[in-house]
């Protein structure tokens, strides 16, 4: 089973690959080492052989004779591992180290060059043997010159070398694996950035991935951004569809209301009352559903947007001033120019619009709209109307409850505002204003400090 972690996969595969490469290197190097030593021994044997050849002569009886023996002390020590032997058909001479033993019969030996081979030699030793025919005198007989070196010490040297090399390569393996770990960490770091950014994206669908990414990651971030765009489009399409549905339902409702009027004119008052009642219920349901879907959309996708409040509130006041209620009123707008509220513009429009219209409907002369930069921001809407009795406050804020029985087609007033404020993580309170009427306070919590770029 493949491990799920990319890091583990990369590290495992790198460790195995490095191990295999180093193991191959170990084998190759020990073989090369052995061959190198063998060549050195062979060269030494040939040098000794040439000394033998220089001192070699053939007696009249055909037996070989030496003027002097090679000086290496190992030739004089029995079974030392280093041997020589010169032989003709008539007799042979050999080093004392051979004692009563003999070097093996020649095989493929020529007079042209030294031949080497590995054979079972004297004292049951594996030996490296070099041999050649030499003719000391031009008209004389050939003499077989043989030299041998046991191979046990060679094997021991190889094993020793192999062990030391293995230790060195193990350390090298460890170092290379550590380097690979660093490399993997560095390589995966952009992915971690991507993960953090995706987290932010999840919290706030309007965020996008930063453009500055390494070339290999960029296609991924671009794809994620495209996906986020598509998702946002879907979301706004869904909102538009909800609005379209409302549009589609409201116009037939208006037509139905025309029917009701005609029915009333024709004297069918009961039927008209029934129709009007049904139309009012349907309208209320549509407005409520639109408000709920808007609130749900905000909850599902908190924007993290902030909006400069003043121009937006002034626009709203401009609208309310045109209404029957608003035309008589003075609107005091006390909002600092730079005040930002932690709500998307269109949501702030709906919240403040509902509150200001509600205040305008009940106010006598004045509506006061105040903005304060306390925590996330505070919006106060006050009027000098009759206010709401404290025992009716809960009812007024109840979701989906219809407050504004007084005026048709004006939505659900405070309840709508309450739902939206709730969705934008704010709190709404109703108190008595010093102007005499209702004071609606909307307070938003300070935005979370841990956002991208502000991590401490």
């Amino acid at each position: 089973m493949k491990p799920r972690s990319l890091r583990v996969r990369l590290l495992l595969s790198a460790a195995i690959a490095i191990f295999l490469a180093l193991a191959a290197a170990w084998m190759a190097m020990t073989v090369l080492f052995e061959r190198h030593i063998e060549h050195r021994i062979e060269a030494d044997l040939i040098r000794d052989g040439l000394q033998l050849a220089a001192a070699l002569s053939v007696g009249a009886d055909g037996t070989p004779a030496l003027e002097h023996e090679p000086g290496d002390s190992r030739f004089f020590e029995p079974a030392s591992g280093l041997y020589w032997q010169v032989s003709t058909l008539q007799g042979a001479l050999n080093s004392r180290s051979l004692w009563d033993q003999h070097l093996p019969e020649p095989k493929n030996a020529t007079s042209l060059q030294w031949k080497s081979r590995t054979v079972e030699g004297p004292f049951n030793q594996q030996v490296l043997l070099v041999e050649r025919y030499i003719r000391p005198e031009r008209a004389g007989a050939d003499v077989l010159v043989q030299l041998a070196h046991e191979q046990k010490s060679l094997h021991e040297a190889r094993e020793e070398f192999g062990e030391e090399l293995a230790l060195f390569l193990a350390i090298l393996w460890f170092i290379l694996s550590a380097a690979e770990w660093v490399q993997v960490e560095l390589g995966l770091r952009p992915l971690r950035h991507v993960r953090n950014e995706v987290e932010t994206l999840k919290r706030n669908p309007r965020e996008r991935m930063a453009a500055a990414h390494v070339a290999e990651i960029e296609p991924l971030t671009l794809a994620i951004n495209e996906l986020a765009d598509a998702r946002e489009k879907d979301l706004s399409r869904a909102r538009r569809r909800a609005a379209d549905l409302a549009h589609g339902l409201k116009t037939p409702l208006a037509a139905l209301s025309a029917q009701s009027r005609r029915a009333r004119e024709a004297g069918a008052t009961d039927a008209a009352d029934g129709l009007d009642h049904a139309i009012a219920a349907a309208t209320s349901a549509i407005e409520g559903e639109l408000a709920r879907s808007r609130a749900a959309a905000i909850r599902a996708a908190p924007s993290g947007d902030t909006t400069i409040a003043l121009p937006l509130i002034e626009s709203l006041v401009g609208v309310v001033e045109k209404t029957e209620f608003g035309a008589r009123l003075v609107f005091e707008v006390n909002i600092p120019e730079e005040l930002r509220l932690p709500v998307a513009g269109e949501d702030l429009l709906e919240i403040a619009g509902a509150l200001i219209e509600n205040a305008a409907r009940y106010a006598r002369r004045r509506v006061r709209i105040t903005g304060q930069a306390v925590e996330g921001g505070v919006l106060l809407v006050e009027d000098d109307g009759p206010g709401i009795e404290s025992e009716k406050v809960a009812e007024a804020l109840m979701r989906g409850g219809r407050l504004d029985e007084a005026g048709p087609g004006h939505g659900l007033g405070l309840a709508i505002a309450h739902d939206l404020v709730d969705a934008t993580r704010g709190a709404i309170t109703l108190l008595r204003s010093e102007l005499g009427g209702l004071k609606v306070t909307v307070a938003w919590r300070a935005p979370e400090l841990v956002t991208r770029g502000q991590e401490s």
Partner: protein
Amino acid sequence: MRALVIEDEAAVAQDVAQALSGAGFVVDIATEGEDAWYKGSVEDYDVAVLDLGLPRIDGLSVLKRWRGAQRTFPVLILSARNDWTEKVAGIEAGADDYLGKPFEMGELIARIRGLVRRAAGRASSTIEVGELVLDTHRMSATFAGRPIRLSQLEFRFLDYLAHQSGRAVSAGELAEHLYGADEPGDSNAIEALVVRLRRKIGPQVIETRRGFGYLLAGDGG
């Protein structure tokens, strides 16, 4: 009196037209944007009822074209899109009122009458006091050439002061003029109105004469 009803839903258009006829209007109907724009551009209407979701050209664009071409007749937007974003967009494009669907015919007729009365009462003239110019026909004002958006109440306040030839007017008298003699005077509301107007136009335009009242700067006195 002539009214233009722009509505793509035939039943609603007929119903509104019928009600307006009953209220003494001569009514034309347009069922799509291009026709509406053409009629509003060449005919003289006293009021228009405009739906926003229209075929060919949407209602908001029609309104903007009219206003761009100095067609100043009052327009009431009648739309199913009843959220504040739409209302603000409609009023800022030059509409005079906004009513959401479904609506009560009585309310629609009352509002249309209100619009027509306000527009008809205004003689086409301007009053200049210093750098302040009041257009009594469009109920709008400019100060030093800069257009200023005024509410009805604000306009009436300035209009009243402008007609006093530099006399300082007390808060009580202003309240009586603005709210009627029956209602008790409310000097707080007048003070708030002055604060708001000074913020909109500039601090120097309305002067306070302690013990006497308010007057417009540069108006004789």
